């Protein structure tokens, strides 16, 4: 069968108006036969390339209960279908949880941020170009990682957490939400479950064909941000090859409380360096209670990349990640 790209094949389109209705349709189609479509920026790429060919597509644009931001300093609940642009410019987020608005404001382009949703940004599939090219790799159900061979082009791939697959998670908002200790509210036909942001993502060691814990038939409904880190000292930085429409070569998000020159508590996460966003618990532990000194900053940076294993073309991600973590602890570039 010859291959052709850039032409979306036909599918059955459903446009439910409630979460229950959406879940009912997903259930009716069973495991993986129906595709959930939010902003479409990930999905339509797959469809256009005719690599993913779902029988049915459940488009959530009309489910108003999935949109909107509620709450205040005591915590926020953000509907999964809230556009990234709205997250980026929401006053409560800017005032209390700026690491999230900063991250959201650097996703792709203004057009994509208007169309793309927070949930979609979190759930997006990896951009490994071997996988995206329709190659039959592990992630696509095959038995090889084309990106991890000694001859592969893997400059943008993982330097840690690889397990056969070396793809990276591309979400900008994920590390920010991990830093904020957010929770993901997931609903399926059997009810609702709540998962911590850092446990939401699944690495290839556990399941090589999935990016998150979301099961077929489930929806990410909302993201809850607790008030614990409101007003913390935040740091967000994303390094990329060009300043728009580009995924992070590495990104860092942190939330810290610093008092009298001492780090009281901190949450730090990086992305673009592993198959999942990585919460740097070890780094958090060694900086807690420490003075905000060069020694602490450097130790944090070194610890962040301990045990990492660069591929042929991505050794640069080690100093990059180390320096980003140092900056996050330092609190400034």
């Amino acid at each position: 069968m010859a291959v052709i790209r850039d032409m979306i094949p036909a599918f059955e389109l459903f446009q439910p108006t409630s979460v229950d209705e959406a879940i009912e349709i997903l259930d009716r189609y069973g495991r993986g036969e129906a595709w959930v479509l939010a902003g479409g920026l990930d999905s339509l790429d797959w469809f256009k390339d005719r690599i993913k060919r779902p029988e049915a597509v459940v488009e959530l644009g009309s489910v108003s209960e999935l949109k909107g931001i509620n709450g205040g300093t005591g915590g926020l609940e953000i509907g999964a279908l809230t556009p990234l642009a709205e997250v980026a410019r929401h006053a409560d987020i800017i005032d209390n949880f700026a690491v999230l608005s900063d991250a959201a404001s650097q996703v792709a382009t203004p057009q994509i941020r208007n169309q793309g949703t927070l949930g979609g940004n979190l759930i997006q599939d990896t951009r490994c170009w071997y996988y995206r090219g329709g190659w039959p790799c592990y992630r696509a159900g095959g038995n090889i990682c084309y990106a991890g061979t000694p001859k592969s082009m893997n400059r943008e791939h993982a330097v840690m957490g690889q397990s056969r697959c070396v793809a990276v998670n591309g979400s900008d908002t994920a590390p920010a939400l991990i830093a904020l200790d957010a929770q993901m509210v997931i609903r399926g036909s059997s009810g609702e479950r709540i998962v911590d942001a850092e446990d939401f993502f699944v690495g290839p060691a556990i399941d090589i064909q999935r990016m998150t814990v979301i099961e077929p038939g489930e929806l990410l409904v909302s993201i809850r941000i607790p008030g614990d880190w409101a007003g913390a000292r935040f740091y967000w930085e994303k390094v990329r090859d060009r300043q728009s429409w580009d995924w992070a070569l590495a990104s860092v998000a942190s939330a810290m409380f610093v008092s009298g020159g001492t780090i009281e508590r901190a949450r730090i996460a990086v992305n673009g360096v592993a198959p999942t966003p990585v919460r740097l618990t070890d780094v958090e532990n060694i900086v807690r209670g420490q003075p905000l000194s060069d020694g602490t900053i450097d130790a944090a940076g070194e610890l962040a990349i301990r045990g990492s294993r660069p591929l042929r073309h991505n050794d640069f991600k080690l100093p990059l990640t180390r320096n980003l973590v140092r900056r996050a602890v330092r609190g400034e570039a």
Partner: protein
Amino acid sequence: MEILRTAANPWGENILLGVAWWLIWAALLAGVAFVVVHAVYVGATGGKKGMTPGPAGAAPVPDKVERHSRSSRTYHWLMAASMLTLLVTAFFPLVGIQFAWVTIHWIAGVALTLLVLWHIYDSFFRQDWRAVWIGGRELGEMKTAVGRFFSRDKVPHPRMAKYHNDQRMFHHAASITGIGVIITGLLMMFRIDTWFWASNPYFLSDSTWGLVFVLHGLCGVGLITLVIAHIYFAIRPEKRWMTRSMIKGWITREEYLTYYDPDKWLLEGEAKPVAAPSGSGGTDAQGDPEAVAPA
């Protein structure tokens, strides 16, 4: 239903990925079906009734006859552990129980490989490999056994050598599938990052890899059925003495004389003269591994 999984490689050529995973369920079903059919059959026919101890051979038979040396037993149980680990780490994730299995799987695989290498050395250089071999005699016996199965006259089973023919058959099947998964598994080690090297999936060609994956899959799936059957026999009441021998190492003199033909399983060494069978039981109390005759 396809037996093999295929995909188009980056050049659009069709390549083999491996066996279809529905074979897991087929193998499981085959194992369970075997167990059920066998259990029903034995329940209905009463199994191999009427076996009584036979005459002893030339060599004296001690109260406890060593069937498995300490090292053989250690080998067996280590192999069992690695095999079960391999099966669990291979198939649980495929049926939806997700965990980080790769490292455990390859370490268990390496362990199995080393065990099997030791076993091969042990059986060729320290033990008699013919003990498990299916030769002309065994084939003849198997032919007779098949004939007996279908005949109306329920002639008692003849007594066997140290390893029964069905055990020999199992050993052959397990050896072939085991060596199959080991060789293919070792090749597949080139495709993952280990502590010793980084993955290189281009070590073999697409088509060779396809074959490797299919063989690994077939042998692996086959082992599901074999292991089910093996465990089933190990826990059947009338076979428990044999299981015990795999734990403690010996069988009783009576068991020896009942199930084995001393001409086919020759005991060696100095031991006390063979006494008449003293009925059931009684031997356990005297269990002293030191006194056991070497097999």
